[in-house]
């Protein structure tokens, strides 16, 4: 079974040299630590390409934050732009991939990650735009929820963020692709058998 960092490292393997990529909050943020020598430019949808690491103490700049409102830094390649242009490049398919977390993914690629009815609704932020617009949508999440139920479902039960949008799912148990008719196992995590992965998955595995 993979831990958070191993999942992030596996997700980083998905990225190709030269790609412009948007990373979501949580485990996806850790992906930046594992890109190695690949030339990857990170987009922050509040208006920046070429996002750098967190600042050293004392170097925080209130005018320089990421989409999670955290203080960050710029790089030599950094470019800034407004929100309309930022989502223009997202909607326009210029961002090669988005890596994001999810509450549920369905076997047809439906994604739910923005609201739980009856609970506090904070909003979708840029998630709907990202999953509708980027080249590849890669979900990184735990395979099951805290009750042990599969988060990979035949159909999502929560309100959708996007319909038929997910390409690949990386969980603590392995990697699956959304294909015709269901999910296809690409690989299993260290120490996880294919039977164990199937047993933990509600969605159809083809």
């Amino acid at each position, binding site marked *: 079974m993979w831990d958070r960092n191993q999942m992030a490292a596996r997700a980083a393997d998905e990225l190709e040299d030269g790609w412009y990529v948007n990373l979501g909050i949580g485990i996806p943020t850790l992906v930046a630590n594992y890109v190695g020598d690949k030339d990857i430019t990170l987009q922050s949808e509040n208006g920046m390409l070429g996002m750098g690491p967190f600042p050293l103490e004392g170097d*925080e700049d209130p005018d320089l934050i990421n989409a*999670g409102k955290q203080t960050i830094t710029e790089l030599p390649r950094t470019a800034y732009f*407004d929100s*309309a242009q930022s989502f223009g490049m997202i909607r326009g398919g210029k961002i090669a991939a988005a890596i994001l977390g999810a509450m549920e993914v369905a076997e047809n690629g439906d994604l739910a990650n923005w609201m739980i009815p009856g609970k506090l609704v*904070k909003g979708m*932020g840029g998630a709907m735009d990202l999953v509708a617009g980027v080249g590849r949508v890669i979900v990184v999440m735990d395979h099951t929820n805290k009750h042990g139920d599969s988060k990979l479902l035949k159909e999502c039960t929560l309100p959708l963020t996007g319909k038929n949008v997910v390409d690949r799912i990386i969980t603590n148990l392995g990697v699956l692709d959304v294909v015709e008719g269901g999910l296809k196992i690409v690989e299993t995590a260290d120490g996880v058998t294919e039977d164990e992965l199937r047993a933990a998955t509600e969605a159809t595995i083809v």
Partner: protein
Amino acid sequence: MKKIYDSADKALEGLLDDGMLIAAGGFGLCGIPELLIDALVESGVKDITIASNNCGVDGFGLGKLLDTKQIKKMMSSYVGENAEFMRQYLSGELELEFNPQGTLAERMRAGGCGIPGFYTKTGVGTVIAEGKDHKDFNGETYIMEEGIFADLSIVKAWKADETGNLIFRKTARNFNPPAAMCGKVCVVEVEEIVPTGSLDPDHIHLPGIYVHRIIQGEHEKRIEQRTVRTA
């Protein structure tokens, strides 16, 4: 025509009406028009609708206008940082229209460009698409979203010249240019007003044609999530 005003309240004089639609720049607390928000609080204008990505935090930014119950409705993509917002929303005192972030930005940009509606893939098959016109282009389904035409824009920039040409700083640009564009009148607060001719014309982020009134002032620029790394 002189665009420079002495203070935020003077700059808003004659522009405020109860029930009006205001577009505000800013993302979280970054690049928000702090001084103009304070002046709106002072003015007592009420029943306003605000198009803004977020609604500040408790007691700061647009959150101040929640405390005084001046806001009737928010058009936003994310409002998670504000307990008073949730209280008013859940009790039915405050209306909320969620917009995907890029749709909100494009609705402002479109309004400023004279485009009353446009089609986007964002939100197709979700609650956002309910009741909206659907249309297929090249085999894919899109939904229609409408341009925002605000009565007033309130924005924050870094520098302005005396004619209103603006330069923003880093990610504080965010929603400010599209918000500025979509208002009938746009009031801008800046950290510095510089003499006309001292900004490189090739480096103007938003030309002064969109800017009607300018004030200069001190900004608190509060940080929402201070994160650092160790050397």
